[in-house]
C-alpha cells in the first residue's frame, strides 16, 4: 500500500468511526481522572487539616487580644457599606521581637534540638549499622525491639524517666549503693534530663531511615575499597558514610523538626529555666489566654522549621537524581 493510499485509508477510518473516536477519547480521559482523584485525596486532606488551620492561626496572629469569646479581634468587620474593613495588627510580631524571652526560647529550642539530633545520630548510626549488618534472622528481631517502645504511650514513657532520673530514683540509688557517688546527682529538671528524654524518644526516627539506607548498601563496594588498598575504617569514611548521607539527613530531619517544638518532654523533665518554645506557646495560650501572641509564636516557629525542611527536600531530590 502506498503512503497516499494509507493516508486515505486513515482519513476514511476517521470519518466512519467518529462516534467510536469520541468514546475512545472519553475512555482515555477516564484513567486520567482516576489518577487526579488519587492525587487529589492527599491534597484535600492537607488542605482541610493543615492549610485551613494554618490560615486561621495566621489570621489570629494578626489580631489583638480582647477579653471576649473568642478572645481576639476579628480580622474583617462589616461596619457599613459593601466592603469589609480589614483590621490587621503586626503588634504581636513586634512584641516577639521586643521581648528577649521569645528570642531566647527560639534559640534555646534550636540548640536543644540540634544537640539532641547529634546525640541521636551518634547513638543511632552504630545501632542502625549493627542491625543492617546482623544476620537476616536477627535483623527482624532487632528492628522489632527498636519499634517496640511505640506500643506504649509516649507520655508514659517520658514519665517513666522521672522515676529513673530523680533524686532517689533508679540510677542514683544504684550508683550510691555501689558507692560510686557519695550523694545523689541532680539529673532531673535540668537540660540534661531534657536531652535524655528527647534522645530516648526520637532515637527510632533516626535509626529507621538510617537502617533502610545502610541495609541496601552494596557489600561489594566495601570489598572494592578494600581491594583497592583501603583499610576498613577508611573505607567506612570514604564509602559507607557518604553513601548513607541521605539516611543521615532524613533521620536528622525526623528528629530535629519535632524536637524544636517539643512540649511534653521539657514540661515533664525540664527545669523551670528550661526555656523551649513549645512551653512558651503553651503558656501564652493556656495561662495568659493570649491567642494572638500564641499564634504569632506558632507562625514564627513554622518559619524556623521551614528552612530545614527545604534543605531536606532538596537533598531528597538530589538523592533521587543519583539513584536514577
Amino acid at each position, binding site marked *: 500500500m502506498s503512503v497516499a493510499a494509507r493516508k486515505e485509508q486513515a482519513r476514511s477510518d476517521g470519518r466512519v468511526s467518529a462516534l467510536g473516536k469520541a468514546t475512545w477519547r472519553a475512555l482515555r480521559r477516564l484513567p486520567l481522572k482516576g489518577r487526579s482523584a488519587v492525587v487529589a485525596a492527599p491534597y484535600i486532606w492537607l488542605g482541610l487539616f493543615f492549610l485551613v488551620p494554618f490560615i486561621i492561626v495566621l489570621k489570629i496572629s494578626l489580631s489583638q487580644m480582647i477579653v471576649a469569646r473568642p478572645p481576639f479581634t476579628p480580622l474583617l468587620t462589616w461596619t457599613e457599606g459593601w466592603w469589609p474593613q480589614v483590621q490587621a495588627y503586626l503588634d504581636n510580631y513586634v512584641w516577639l521581637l521586643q521581648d528577649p524571652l521569645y528570642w531566647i526560647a527560639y534559640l534555646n529550642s534550636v540548640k536543644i534540638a540540634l544537640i539532641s539530633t547529634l546525640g541521636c545520630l551518634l547513638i543511632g548510626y552504630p545501632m542502625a549499622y549493627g542491625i543492617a549488618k546482623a544476620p537476616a534472622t536477627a535483623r527482624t528481631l532487632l528492628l522489632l525491639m527498636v519499634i517496640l517502645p511505640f506500643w506504649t504511650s509516649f507520655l508514659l514513657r517520658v514519665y517513666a524517666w522521672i522515676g529513673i532520673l530523680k533524686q532517689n530514683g533508679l540510677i542514683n540509688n544504684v550508683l550510691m549503693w555501689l558507692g560510686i557517688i557519695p550523694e545523689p546527682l541532680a539529673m532531673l529538671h535540668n537540660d540534661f534530663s531534657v536531652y535524655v528524654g528527647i534522645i530516648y524518644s526520637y532515637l527510632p526516627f533516626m535509626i529507621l531511615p538510617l537502617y533502610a539506607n545502610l541495609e541496601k548498601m552494596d557489600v*561489594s563496594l566495601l570489598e*572494592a575499597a578494600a581491594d583497592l588498598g583501603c583499610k576498613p575504617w577508611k573505607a567506612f569514611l570514604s564509602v559507607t558514610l557518604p553513601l548513607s548521607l541521605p539516611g543521615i539527613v532524613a533521620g536528622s530531619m525526623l528528629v530535629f523538626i519535632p524536637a524544636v517544638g517539643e512540649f511534653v518532654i521539657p514540661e515533664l523533665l525540664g527545669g523551670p529555666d528550661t526555656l523551649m518554645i513549645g512551653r512558651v506557646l503553651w503558656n501564652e495560650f493556656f495561662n495568659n489566654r493570649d491567642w494572638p501572641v500564641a499564634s504569632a509564636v506558632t507562625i514564627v516557629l513554622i518559619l524556623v522549621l521551614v528552612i530545614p525542611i527545604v534543605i531536606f527536600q532538596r537533598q531528597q531530590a538530589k538523592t533521587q537524581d543519583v539513584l536514577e
Partner: protein
Amino acid sequence: MPEASATAGTLEPWRDPQARPYVRIEGVTKRFGEFTAVDDVSLDIFRSELFALLGASGCGKTTLLRMLAGFERPTSGRILIDDQDVTAMPPYERPVNMMFQSYALFPHMSVEQNVAFGLKQDSVPKAELKARVGEALELVQLGPWARRKPHQLSGGQRQRVALARALVKRPKLLLLDEPLAALDKKLREKTQFELMNIQDEVGVTFVVVTHDQEEAMTLSTRMAVMDRGRVMQVGTPSEVYEFPSTRFTADFIGSINVFEGRVRSIDGDLVVVESPQFGGELEVASQARVAQGQTVWVAVRPEKISIAPRGEGGAKEGRRRNAADGVVQDIAYLGDTSVFRVDIGNGTLIEVTQTNLFRSIERPIDWDARVTLSWTANVGLILSE
C-alpha cells in the same frame, strides 16, 4: 632451532620445567560449615598469563578467586604471589586488584575519582596520580567521560571504568569475576578482544572466572575446568577441547558423543572397543593406558563426524568400525553450521555438525533422510573416567 625453544619458553612457560610460577595455589581447601566450596586445589599460574577458571555456577571458581583477592581465607593450603605468601594477608595489603562482576563502582564518585581511589590509598603524589589516571582512562578509551558519574554511563562503559580502576594500581595479579557477563552478545565479543589487547599491552597476569566456555576459550592462554570444588583439567583451550581427560570436561566444553564400551583388543596405538550402546565396534588411535576388558568411554566431537546420504536399497553389509547407518531426526540450522541428530537405532542419538559450505535453501540432507555416519580412528578419544 634455538629460537623456537626460546619462544616456547616465554609464550608457553608451563611447558618449561625450569620456569617459576608467578602465582602458586598449593592444596587450597575452603569449607563453609559442612559445605566444601574448594577442595584441595593446586594451580600454578605464570607471569603474564591470562588464566581462566571455568565451571558451572557453584563449582567453587568464584570462591577460589575471592581467596586470591583476600576476601576469603582458605581453610587449609597456601597461596603465593611472586614468592610471597599472601594466605593470611588482608585484601587491602595484597598486590592484587579485582574487577567485580557487578563492577562495584562507587556511585558517589566520578569516573576519574573511581579510578584515582586506589592510587589515593597509596598516597601517590598528585601529579603522578593525575598522569596515571589519565593513562588508565586513555587505555580503556574513556577520557571524555572522566567527569561523569557511573549512573550516567552505559554498561560497556562501566565495565571499562571497572577495568581501568583495577589496572591503574599496576597489580601483580588482576582478577576478573565474570567480566563480560553483564554485556550483550555483540558487545561481549568486541570486549573480549579489547580485553586481550589490553592484557597484551600492560602485561599484567590475569585470572578470569567465567561460566562461559566460549569466553574462556577466546580469552585464555590456559584454563582450569572446575567441578564441585575440584580442578578437573588444566590446559590450553585446544588441549582441553581436543584432549579432555575425563567425561566431565569432554561434556562440559562443547558437545560430544560418548559411547560406553569394553576394550576388545589393543594393537599398538589402535584400541578397539566393543560398544553395545553404539551397536558395533569402535577403533581409536590412542596412547591411553587401558587394559583389555576394561570399561571405557569413546568420545567423538560432532564436527569430526562426516555425514553422507545413504543410497536406497543395497544389502546391509557388515558394520564397519566407526561407522553407523541412521535416520536424521533433527536438524538445527545455525547459519554457519548445521547440527544433525541422527538416530542409529537402539535409542542412541549421534550429534553431527557440518559447516554449511554452499549457499542453498534446499538441504542436501533433510529430516528423515537415511544417512551414513563415519569418522577416522584418530579423531576419537578414549576416556577411562
